[in-house]
Every structure is written in C-alpha cells, then in structure tokens.
C-alpha cells in the first residue's frame, strides 16, 4: 500500500527491527503486521510526532519492556490523537521499542484505507477475544475505557473523565496482566471541539463529526504531556460481580485523574518534573 511513496528513516527502521515480533518469509507477523509497511508509516509518523506535535513523556520506564500489559488512559480531544501519541512514545521513545495494539472502534475498519493501514500495523477492533489472545501472546494492549464517549468530550471538558467501561479490568484479571495507567493532556488545545454532529456522523458511518473552533478537523501544532504511572496489578479471575470490578476500575480511574492533574500543572508550569508522583 505504501510502496515507494514514503521514504524509510533508517533510525525508525532500526527501531522496528528491534521489536520483539516474529516475521514470516513475507515479513508479516502472525497478526498481519507488515515490517516494511510499518517502517514506512512510522517514518512519516515520526515527523508528526516529533516536529508537528511535541510530546513531553514522563515515566516511560513504568511500561514493562517485555511481556503482557494493558496501557489504560484518558481521551483528550475530538479524535484519538492521544492514541497516536501513545503509539509514538512506545515506538520512538521507549527502550526497547514496543508496538501496542490499540483496541479501536469498529467503524474504523469499515473505511477503505484506514482498514488496510490498521490491519498492517496491528490495530484491531476492540474485542475481548482478540485482546485476551494478544495478552496471552505477551503483547501490549492500549485501551481507552471512555471509548467514543471520551473523544466526544468538548474542548472545555478535555481534561475531565467520563464513565469507564469495565472490560479492560476483567481482561486484566483473567489474563493476569499489569495495568499501566497514563494521563494525556493537551488534546483539547490541539483540536478544540465546540460541537459534535451526531446525525451527520451517522450518515457518514462514524460516531459523530467534531466541529472545531476553526471549523476544520485539522489539529494545530501542540505540545502534549503524557505521563505513565506505576503498573497496577489486581487479584481475581475476571468473573467477579460488577460492584467488585467497578471498585477496581475506580482505583485506576483515580490514578489517571491524578496523572492528568499533574500533567495539567506541568503544562501550566505550576510544578516541575521533580515534583511528579507517578
């Protein structure tokens, strides 16, 4: 798909080679990740990640460098720029690099191009069977328990949290995977949404169409803060009663709330890196 259109950055190529993935004779891993497509795409994306946007990443050592894990954080902004930046930090900043599998909304795979891109880079429709399988294969999962409700937050609410699903917690319990909470700040500035058009969205096959301050859906260059907290582990089987799971989810949500607050304070220069409690 990306044949010869995008140049490969040698530094990015080296990082992709360093990923802990098994590629077959066609350079494709068992989940359809194409080594060459990934190199081309991440090379182009690296420019966006490093120069168009700027991401201050804190606590990246809190993400396990091998083995299963679930990255759980907040949505901030009208589209999932946050997800892309988390991917960027794991691929371009983490040592060794890791490729998280984001559990994405079903509508994305219904779009031509998007489906192909997501399939070749290991991004699947969120599905408990799929997620559990990836975790058992010692992969890293990226989940936004706010779902589309989270990206639908308007700019004024960008740093708040809406209701969390509990699927990620049951998954963590069932597969005994650590949860790495993260807070992401700044999405509301990059893409300040003032309204979401739900009816137009339905016509186009997406949850909603965000309208920004400047009308267009083009984010402005922004500096983001991304804070990874210490991993959390929970004891259980994944088949507990809802109340029990919800209270565990509440603990994760509190941690994320704290990370967002500190990210906001960093952004406003009220605290410095030394003051962080991750």
């Amino acid at each position: 798909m990306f044949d010869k259109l995008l140049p490969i950055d040698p530094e990015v190529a080296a990082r992709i080679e360093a990923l802990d993935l098994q590629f077959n004779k066609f350079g494709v891993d068992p989940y359809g990740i194409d080594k060459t497509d990934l190199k081309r795409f991440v090379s182009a994306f690296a420019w966006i990640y490093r120069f168009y946007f700027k991401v201050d990443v804190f606590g990246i050592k809190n993400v396990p460098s091998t083995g299963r894990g679930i990255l759980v954080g907040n949505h901030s902004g009208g589209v999932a720029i946050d997800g892309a930046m988390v991917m960027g930090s794991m691929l371009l900043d983490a040592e060794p690099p890791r490729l998280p599998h984001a559990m994405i909304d079903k509508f994305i795979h219904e779009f031509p191009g998007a489906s192909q891109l997501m399939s070749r880079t290991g991004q699947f429709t969120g599905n408990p069977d799929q997620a559990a399988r990836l975790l058992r294969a010692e992969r890293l999962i990226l989940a936004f328990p706010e779902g589309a409700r989270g990206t639908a937050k308007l700019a004024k609410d960008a740093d708040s949290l809406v209701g969390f699903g509990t699927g990620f917690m049951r998954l963590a319990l069932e597969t005994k995977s650590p949860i790495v909470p993260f807070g992401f700040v700044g999405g509301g500035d990059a893409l300040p949404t003032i309204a979401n058009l739900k009816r137009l969205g339905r016509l186009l096959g997406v949850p909603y169409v965000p309208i920004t301050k400047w009308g267009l859906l083009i984010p402005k260059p922004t500096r983001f803060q991304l804070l990874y907290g210490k991993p959390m582990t929970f004891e259980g089987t994944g088949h507990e009663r809802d109340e029990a799971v919800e209270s565990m989810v509440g603990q994760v949500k509190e941690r994320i709330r704290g990370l967002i607050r500190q990210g906001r304070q960093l952004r406003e220069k009220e605290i410095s890196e030394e003051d962080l409690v991750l």
Partner: protein
Amino acid sequence: MKVLVTGISGMLGRITALKLLKHGYEVIGIDRRPWPEAPEAIALFQADIRKRPAEDVFRTHRPDAAIHMATVTHLVHKSPDRMRVNLYGTRAFIHHCHQYGVKQAVFAGRHTFYGAAADSPLYHTEDEPPISTHTFPELADLVAADLYAASALWRYPGIATAVLRIVYTLGPSKHGTLASFLKGPNVPLVMGFDPLFHFIHEDDAATAIVSALAHKLHGIYNVSGPTPVPLSTIVRAAGRRAIPVPESIFKLGVGRLGLPHLPAGAIDHLKYPIVVDSEAFRRATRYSYEFDERETINSFRTAR
C-alpha cells in the same frame, strides 16, 4: 482398514485418496464425477451420495471409516441444488455411517464457516459461532452442513466423528476457492482493504485429513498450515498483478468488466480476514505442515 471417500473425484478428494493408499489403507470412493486416471487399487462408484446406489456402496462394502468431501461451494455449483447436495448429502453420509457400522467419520469442512466482518477477531477458536450467514447467504448451506455434521457427535457418540474446518487450499492442482480467485493475470482487490488470508498447501490439507483419521479424532477442529499472509502479498507472490477497485464499482461490476463472478457477500471475504486457531488439532495429532507460505504459493505459481 477400509476407508470410503465421498467426493473422491474432486481435487482434495483425489489427493487424499492417494495419500490414504500410500499409508496402506484400502480405499473406495463415491462421486458423481468420473476420475478417469484413478489407480486401479481404488474401487470407484459413480453415484450421487444422496441416492440409493451410494447407500448400496456402504451396505456392500462396509467401510471401517468414511471421509465426507462431497460438499460444493457457490463457485462450483451455482444452482439452488447446491443447498440440497450439501445438506441432504451430509445427512445421507451420517445416516449411512450409523446404519452400516462405520466406526470413524471425517467431515472435511471449511474455515469460511466463521465468516468475515470488521469486528471479527483473528484466530477463531472452534467454539465461536458463524457470524456472517446473513450477509453471505451463499455460504449458509455450508455452515449448516458443518453444524449438521457436528450433530453426529451427540447423536451417534459411538462413531468417532471429526469435523474439520480447513483453511483455503492452494497448490499445483490450481483448484479451489483461492486458486480460482487468482486465476487470471490481473486480480481485482477491494481498494483500501487487505485482509489476511489463511491457506494451506493442498498436500498438507490431505495429510491433515489422513491424520484426523489415524488419530480417531472426535470433535470439531480447525486445520491450518503456516501463518496467514495479506491477500495483496499472495497476489504478487503468485506472479499476478493486484488491481485495487473501489468497493462501489466492485459491487456493480461483479461478473462483468473482468471482475470475478462472486456473490455480493463474498466481497466481505476480500475485505476482512478469516484466520483460525488450529492449536487443538496440532495438540491432538502432532500434525505439522510441510510447505511454508512461500513454497505453497510457488507450487501454485509454477504449476503447468
């Protein structure tokens, strides 16, 4: 041990029959179609599995085991009769196995059972339900035949029944769903989609069927070979040119403009992957494939 193969004149039927012979089984076969160059050691009966002459073969020859391969896809058989062949054929097969003392039955089914959709996970396990019979009605009778065959597991627990869901076969015979799709020099793909395709060398598929028999499997098993490969990669590796066509034009032009004759539902199979987990089969039979992904495609590409 005497093994009866239904649908023996089909591509996979022939390869399986020859393999059985090589492993020392006595082989008899039923098919509506002839198999002119069949080895003499194989007793062939030209009959329809649903008709009395086929039952006579079971009655007279009393096979110890039977393999049911007499199911057809929409690609081979366009008429509504296909549904009858698949369902009544499977029913007759199971009935005869029970009636005439067959101790082992193998149903050679397809992995397309699971269906393709935007939200279906990779690596289906055997407990997953079929999800796309409503969008692909041409597949419904094969799904039903699979489920019907599996009902033998509880109806006749005395017969060791193996329901195999085998991924697409590919190889020098140039027969099968995937091979037909790759027939021409230009292969149309749905633009912007590139699903993983799970395939196995036809020889390995036959080995798997023989292996299910040898291990007296009782249950439902996915069968696959090497890890799946994106469709566009298969097309290129097969020496074909991939022509991405926007979905709307694809739908309009199916069967015309050089596009293949495909039912509308088949388009989902060109957009989304059907990939299966065959760990259970591997554990039960210690089966391993011989041809990897590249060798399999090459054997198809270089065949005359």
